[in-house]
């Protein structure tokens, strides 16, 4: 009896200390949480080391890493080189996603409507209010657009999706840039604010005439009607994994300090204009080198073996050349002893 109790206590103590020693701690963006959790699960099975990731939002993740309460922070909106420098942080893109405009017009199916950036900006500015507007009709000569009021749906909570979406609108529309700007939450001139990707997806699905923007995975899983886009090269593209990867491959990572590249509106005939990467932040001179090394080991695993897991969850893995550049940057910048 006594020995059994003693044994039990020892097992608990050992497993507790293992979990403590092995857990890599991180906090931040909610968008990549499902894939980080999936990678962590499979990494734990192979190595026994766990990951404790709190998906509390990009802004909160930046706060946490700056307060040094976690080993890595995760953010959808990258920090600029100067801010990284000031804080002594290294930054790199971990995985990508696509943002797609989703619509709800009776009788219109996915890919039947094409939209370009400036028109999208005018819709979200409230300047275009009806689906039969000449600007939309001009892009879709073959489709009979209904006389239907446009109901704009946007995110109400601060979000990396919003950051990437408004960044795109700022790049393609001077009006949007001067009046609204880009950030994780902005002052929307029109529309309904919904909470989370699922909130926007539900709202668009339930409101005739609605247009919104969601992560690709949500559009796919909820079977929402999406619109094709005209990219920077003037070509019509559909939201596919290839189109997202084309945007990442065509981006100029090599000349971007701190990998500060926002993947919206990238050049290339195949590039989807609303592609977005999510970033990791770690200290160049970590206070605890062991923990920092453990985290880097996890990220190496995710890069090397995580691509299929990412695709299964509708995320887009980073292209190989970019991964090579990230690993080179680790070797150069992060103290690993």
């Amino acid at each position, binding site marked *: 009896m006594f020995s059994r109790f003693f044994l039990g206590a020892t097992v608990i103590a050992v497993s507790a200390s293992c979990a403590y020693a092995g857990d890599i701690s991180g906090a931040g963006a909610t968008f990549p949480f499902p894939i980080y959790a999936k990678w962590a699960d499979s990494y734990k099975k192979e190595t026994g080391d766990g990951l404790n990731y709190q998906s*509390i*939002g*990009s*802004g*909160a993740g*930046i*706060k946490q890493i700056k307060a040094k309460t976690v080993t890595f922070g995760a953010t959808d909106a990258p920090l600029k080189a100067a801010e990284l420098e000031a804080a002594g942080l290294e930054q790199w893109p971990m995985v990508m996603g696509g943002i797609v405009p989703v619509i709800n017009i009776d009788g219109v199916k996915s890919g039947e409507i094409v939209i370009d950036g400036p028109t999208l900006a005018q819709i979200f500015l409230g300047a275009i209010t009806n689906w039969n507007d000449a600007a939309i009709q001009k892009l879709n000569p073959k489709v009979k657009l209904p006389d239907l*009021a446009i*109901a704009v749906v946007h995110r*109400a*909570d*601060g*979000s990396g999706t919003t950051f990437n979406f*408004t960044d795109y609108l700022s790049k393609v529309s001077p009006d949007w840039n001067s009046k*609204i*700007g*880009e*950030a*994780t*939450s*902005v*002052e*929307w*001139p*029109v*529309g*309904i*604010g*919904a*909470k989370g990707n699922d909130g926007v997806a*539900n709202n668009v699905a*339930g*409101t005739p005439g609605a247009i919104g923007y969601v992560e690709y995975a949500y559009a796919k899983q909820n079977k929402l009607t999406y619109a094709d886009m005209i990219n920077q090269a003037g070509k019509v593209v559909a939201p596919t994994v290839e189109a997202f990867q084309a945007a990442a491959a065509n981006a100029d990572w090599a000349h971007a300090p701190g990998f500060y590249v926002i993947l919206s509106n990238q050049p290339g005939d195949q590039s989807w204009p609303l592609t977005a990467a999510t970033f990791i932040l770690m200290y160049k001179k970590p206070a605890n080198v062991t923990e920092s090394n453990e985290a880097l080991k996890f990220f190496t695993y995710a890069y090397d073996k995580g691509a299929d897991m990412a695709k299964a969850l509708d995320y887009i893995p980073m292209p190989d050349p970019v991964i090579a550049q990230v690993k080179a940057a680790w070797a150069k910048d992060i103290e690993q002893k």
Partner: protein
Amino acid sequence: MTASALESIDLVRDPAKDRARALGRFKLADASFRVMTLGAALVVLLLLLGVAVSLFIGAWPAFHAFGFDFLLNDSWSPPKERFGAAAAIYGTVVTSVIAMVIGVPIGLGIAVFLTELCPPALRRPIGIAIELLAGIPSIIYGIWGVYYLKPFMQAYVEPALIATLGRIPGFGLLFKGPPLGYGVLTAGLVLAIMILPFVTAIARDVFETVPAVLKEAAYGVGATTFEVVGGIVIPYTQVGVIGGIMLALGRALGETMAVTFVIGNATHIMPSLLAQGTTISAMIANQFADADPGLFTSSLLALGFILFVITFIVLALARWMLSRLETKAGR
């Protein structure tokens, strides 16, 4: 002999002395009990003061940067670092007013029915239903609002309002715009349902304290039920009823999740009640996690401080009203 007699008196316990000693022990227990309860009361004051002060310190950069304009400006633009609380204050006040206008009469009506008119067999089931309504978490009201109330508002109520009240010149401005279902009015309705049980439960409890003899006397001289309620029950219980209403108003002002779901979260003021809006607590819940440190976070804390002040003003008004009623009743 005398000495031993004195001794024996001392040995034989003097009951008076014994009582004094026992009471002395109580005195110590009494004093420590007093100190403990005083301490508990002071903790409340300290907490209140601490929350107010820390909110104010956090909010100071925003107050300093925008000054009085913070209260009047209805623009909220994080990328431009331009923040104003007017839209959130407006939404908070308007949704609460809608909730009170709808919720209080219905709540009081239920309470009157339950205490004065209800057949005894129905009294318990209705009473329990009201109490259950009070126990539903607010997020459930939010989900219910999105999936059931919003489509109903969009399909029936809002088109009807636009076609009727919306045509009145001037006043019609309150009922203009496309019927999207999300908006200040829908949020006010959800709040009305949420405060209903507070108003009803408290009103019912205080109505039951009215002495039967008063009511019977009124009935005896030929008063109708309406006259008894208006002339006897409500005047007799008004202090308690107002307390219940204020508790309900407090809940309406601070409610977060249910409102966020249905109000549409637009960060500027629009005149129509059918248009989207926001409230102070909805704004904080939506934006705090992703807020950059600096002016953005500080402005959100400033919103929190303003809500604190609004709640304080409401409570102070309630106290003032109650004290006026009491002096009137005394006269």
